């Protein structure tokens, strides 16, 4: 092996390592099922236009039962129609786009805010920690939905506002987790080593500490994604979600509740959709945790 051949760390191996990490999931059947469900919904969202038999907002025969033929008899409403005659299957398929756009976006924003705060609080300790932790406690002492309701009632319901609200409400929780991990990791000798060679605090936080906290954070992100999906659904159910008429799973349940006594299928199918997606995230999180604890 020549000296040149021994490069520091080839770039592509990072990608390779990620793929290997993902491959580990194969060892946990729970995680595999979760990953499968998530992939299913992601593909559905990507190919919604191709997959959906009807346009999501097109009206036809109202309140058709599953399997009923469409108005012109050319197609079948596999899951029936809602009170306005819109095809439920198509709306669920298109609804996956909304949730799979806003849930990851909101979670990402929350991490983007929460991680630096947690790093600073855990690594710098002292006043920074006291102030940040206190503020986090204040926000976390609101029952989550109360906070959402107040925020949405004040700033109005829209996709962007949901992202904002989720970021505001979840960042403190992420900060706490990161802080806890940092408090443990900052006492490792490699951190001392970095300190004794005079590295800057942010380099220590981002290069020496953060990469070693990624395991628990990835698991947490999966759980949190599931929870954000629930939140978006619940807000939709309460009529505080994404504005109509575009389909949103929670909103679909809310709109059809009045008819639930006679025609429960209109509410049940969106509920199954949302529950399955959350289940996917939770199972994946469990699988990842199981795999990460193994070695």
């Amino acid at each position, binding site marked *: 092996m020549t000296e040149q051949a021994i490069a520091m760390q080839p770039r592509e191996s990072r990608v390779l390592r990620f793929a290997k990490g993902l491959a580990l999931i194969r060892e946990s059947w729970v995680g595999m099922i979760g990953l499968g469900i998530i992939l299913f919904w992601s593909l559905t969202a990507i190919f919604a236009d191709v997959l959906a038999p009807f346009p999501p907002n097109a009206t036809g025969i109202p309140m058709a039962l599953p399997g009923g033929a469409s108005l012109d008899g050319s197609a079948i409403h596999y899951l029936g129609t809602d009170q306005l005659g819109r095809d439920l299957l198509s709306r669920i398929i298109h609804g996956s786009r909304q949730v799979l756009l806003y849930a990851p976006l909101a979670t990402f924003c929350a991490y983007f805010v929460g991680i630096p705060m947690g790093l600073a609080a855990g690594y710098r300790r002292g006043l920074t920690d006291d102030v940040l932790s*206190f503020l986090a406690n*204040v926000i976390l*002492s609101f029952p989550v939905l*109360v906070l959402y309701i107040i925020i949405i009632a004040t700033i109005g319901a829209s996709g962007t506002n949901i992202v904002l609200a989720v970021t505001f409400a979840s960042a403190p929780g992420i900060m706490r987790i990161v802080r806890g991990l940092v408090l443990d990791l900052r006492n490792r000798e490699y951190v001392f080593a970095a300190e004794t060679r005079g590295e800057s605090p942010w380099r220590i936080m981002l290069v020496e500490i953060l990469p070693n906290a990624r395991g628990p954070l990835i698991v947490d992100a999966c759980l949190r994604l599931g929870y954000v999906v629930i939140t978006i*659904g619940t807000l939709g159910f*309460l009529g505080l979600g994404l504005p109509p008429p575009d389909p949103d799973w929670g909103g679909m349940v809310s709109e059809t509740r009045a008819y639930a006594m006679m025609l429960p299928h209109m509410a049940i199918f969106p509920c199954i959709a949302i529950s399955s997606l959350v*289940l996917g995230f*939770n199972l994946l999180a469990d699988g990842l945790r199981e795999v990460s604890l193994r070695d």
Partner: protein
Amino acid sequence: MLIFMVRRFGTMVLTMLVVSILVFSLLEINIDSVATKVLGPYSSQEQRHLWLEANGYYEPAVFRYFDWLAAFVVGDFGESVRFKAPVSDVLWPRLGNTGILGGLALFFASAIGLTVGVIAGMREGGLRDRVASVSAILTTSVPEFATAVFLLSLFVFQLQWLPGTSGMANGFDPLQLVMPVLTLVIYDWGYIARMTRASMAEVMTTHYIRTAVLKGLPYGQVIRQHALRNALIAPFTVIMLQINWLLSGVIVVEWAFGYKGFGALLYEASLNQDIYLIEACAMVAVFVAVMTQTLADIGYTYLNPRIRFS
């Protein structure tokens, strides 16, 4: 210990203060919107101006905040626009109803969660553990509103065993409580169970459990005297913190089943822009949450001899 409690209560008061500032500034800084919310969207500019003048809204926000806070502390929450009555008259009975609902839900969720968690954690990776874990993940993945829909279609639509709403129109009816409590329990037990399981499983791998087994103690005694005592410290905190989550849950469940509780009240208030009612509900909710957190901390310290005697 005394110092700790005093300090903990101090933090609690401080938290409440900051929360009150937050709530106040979110809802009352923009005085025009306050007037609009109170007088309705069809009120004239003139009416709003007169109302604001009459109610001292042109004072600086800081003064208004302290007036507001002073009134709040003595229980004067203002007048509800929607109910045309003092907020406190509306709030307290509703809170009582929610207390019944939440208390029952918390009791059953804890009982089931703790039992399942302990049994699952006794042998990590065993069949019981796997069944418990998967069912806990399954039920916590279903949002409350979805559970409500599923339960409604099963017990009300299909089987017709239970009433579909819990409005208690004809007086208190325990049967009407079944669905909302069940919905909350289904969503909440799993989390408690998983936390208990994790705590129990961790304790079972400790060296002091090995010591107890190798002392020749009967297995039951090892579990009861050595494992549970340590394994139940963490779930205690989890259960106390669960009250915070439950306060979110009751909003959905009360709304879904038409139960006349605090959660439905808060939601109604926000739909109707009933500003003083929102403030009162929010502050009460946070107070309950902060109070339980404080109790959880104190309880944790008390349960854990390593902290108690240090």
